[in-house]
């Protein structure tokens, strides 16, 4: 009976909607953007806009490169040289890819210097480092999270903790992963990741940018002060979220009765917009760059424009061990963790944050 009930349960999603103004002192938009470390896809939609403005285009082009290293042993990330060169100066992030979070071992280096390992049971028992069981394990614990603070290790170079971690990674259980690395430097430093890891197979990549223009798009009418929407005058935040998803996946919105794929139609009331630009950037994108993009989109409304609002949506990696700050993230059904800003012309904004089943509530 209990099994049947459990099987009938649908894994839950969480959607948090907030509204605020960019001018507020306590506005948390910077905090949300900066603590969401691993961003896979950034898309923004500007209605009533034929071509992207020059500043936006330049900004999007300047999303720096990211690197992929194959078969990097984990002990390379805890050497003092690496910590002093990259982790302390600027913010360096690394994430394993090609490793499913719910099946294999995964590792992530956060910009604040913490190394998070998500290990399965056998690896955790063999490695010998202190960790805690994951919160979404169920009765029989299969996944353990080990968290190593690299900044703390670097302050005491010859400490027992460092010796133990180093022994565990070098001799006891040498783990190798494929990593995606990115480094946001804060000083004019000469060394780059390419030259440091030249002995491994490292490749540089640039984020992929796709700009398109959509004609005759049905957009819902929104009012910035009504988050829940009003029956005939404005749409609610939930309806907007669904509509955005349909637009980004290029679904047909005309609700044709014989359409097999989708019978979704735009929430009412809506207007028809002649043109809208949709830009998508895919890659390993740093949160600092997204901050810059958000500010640029705020400044879009400095000059009077036809568009009532613009949206910016950011999706995270499905296989990252953390979602916001150090909240644990699991895959379960879809592994989604994303947030979306809707920016109005009076500098109000709406913020949606969505997570899947095996996730903590967003901050």
């Amino acid at each position, binding site marked *: 009976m209990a099994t049947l009930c459990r099987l009938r349960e649908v894994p839950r999603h969480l959607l948090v909607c907030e509204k605020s103004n960019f001018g507020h002192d306590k506005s948390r938009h910077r905090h949300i953007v900066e603590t969401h470390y691993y961003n896979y896809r950034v898309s923004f939609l500007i209605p009533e806009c034929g071509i992207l403005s020059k500043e936006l285009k330049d900004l999007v082009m300047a999303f720096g490169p990211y690197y992929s290293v194959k078969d990097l042993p984990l002990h390379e990330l805890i050497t003092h040289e690496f910590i002093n060169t990259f982790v302390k100066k600027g913010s360096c992030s690394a994430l394993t890819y090609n490793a499913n979070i719910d099946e294999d071992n995964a590792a992530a280096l956060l910009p604040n210097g913490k190394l998070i390992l998500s290990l399965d*049971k*056998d690896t*955790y*028992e*063999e*490695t*010998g*480092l*202190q*960790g805690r069981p994951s919160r979404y394990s169920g009765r029989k614990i299969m996944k353990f999270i080990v968290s190593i603070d690299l900044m703390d290790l670097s302050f005491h170079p010859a400490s027992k903790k460092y010796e133990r971690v180093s*022994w*565990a990674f070098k001799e*006891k259980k040498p783990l190798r992963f494929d990593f995606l690395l990115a480094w946001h430097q804060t000083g004019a430093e000469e060394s780059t990741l390419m030259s440091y890891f030249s002995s491994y197979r490292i490749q540089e990549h640039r984020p992929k940018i796709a700009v398109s223009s959509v004609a005759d798009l049905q957009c819902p009418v929104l009012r910035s002060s009504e988050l829940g929407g009003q029956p005939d005058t404005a749409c609610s935040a939930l309806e907007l979220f669904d509509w955005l998803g349909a637009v980004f996946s290029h679904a047909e919105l005309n609700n044709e009765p014989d359409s097999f794929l989708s019978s979704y139609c735009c929430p009412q009331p809506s207007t028809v917009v002649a043109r809208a630009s949709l830009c998508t950037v895919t890659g390993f994108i740093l949160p600092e760059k997204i901050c810059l993009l958000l500010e640029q989109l705020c400044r879009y409304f400095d000059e009077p424009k036809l568009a009532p609002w613009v949206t910016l949506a950011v999706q995270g990696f499905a296989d990252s061990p953390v979602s916001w700050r150090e909240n644990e993230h699991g895959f379960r059904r879809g592994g989604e963790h994303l947030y979306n800003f809707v920016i109005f012309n009076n500098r109000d904004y709406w913020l949606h944050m969505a997570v899947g089943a095996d996730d903590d509530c967003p901050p």
Partner: protein
Amino acid sequence: MKSVIYNAFSQKEAKEFDVQHTGAQRAEAFVRAFLKRSMPHMSQQVREDLLQRKAVVLEYFTHRKQKEKKKKSRGLSAKQRRELRLFDIKPEQQRYSLFLPLHELWKQYIRDLCNGLKPDTQPQMIQAKLLKADLHGAIVSVTKSKCPSYVGVTGILLQETKHVFKIITKEDRLKVIPKLNCVFTVEIDGFISYIYGSKFQLRSSERSAKKFKAKGTIDL
């Protein structure tokens, strides 16, 4: 002495005391009746046999007398044994270098047990021998454990009790490692064996007589 107590009557005394000599038959009957009254549990036949002094078959009793319980020493309880501190190793004796000859001895013993360890010996044979062998003096190390802080402890095995290994590490520290939920590695001449501690919860003396069955999982 009998002569003092019993004396035959002379004829004259008998006449005087008016004691009549009973006839021989009457005497015999009297004796029989007397015996019957004295020994009622015996049957007539047995009494006759007794009087005739036949050879008597010694009876054997069907239920034996309870043998007196041997008063053996009860032995000491675990608490008393611990108080005796026979098996404690004093701190001044806890030196790794002191036990290295023990390790050499153990290696020699294992080599003899397996009739010489050649590189082409079958691992199954070595495993079977190791199951029954004594492990005092072996260098063991913990490879896998449910508790991460036990992993990596390496040293010479000093004592093995039912649930615990007592190991001395290179830093001269005596470590007590529970066997449950641990996997130990024993290495001899290039042959590495893994001991699953959860199945090994026996005193070393009892282990030599136990047959091991593959039951349950080896998952920790």
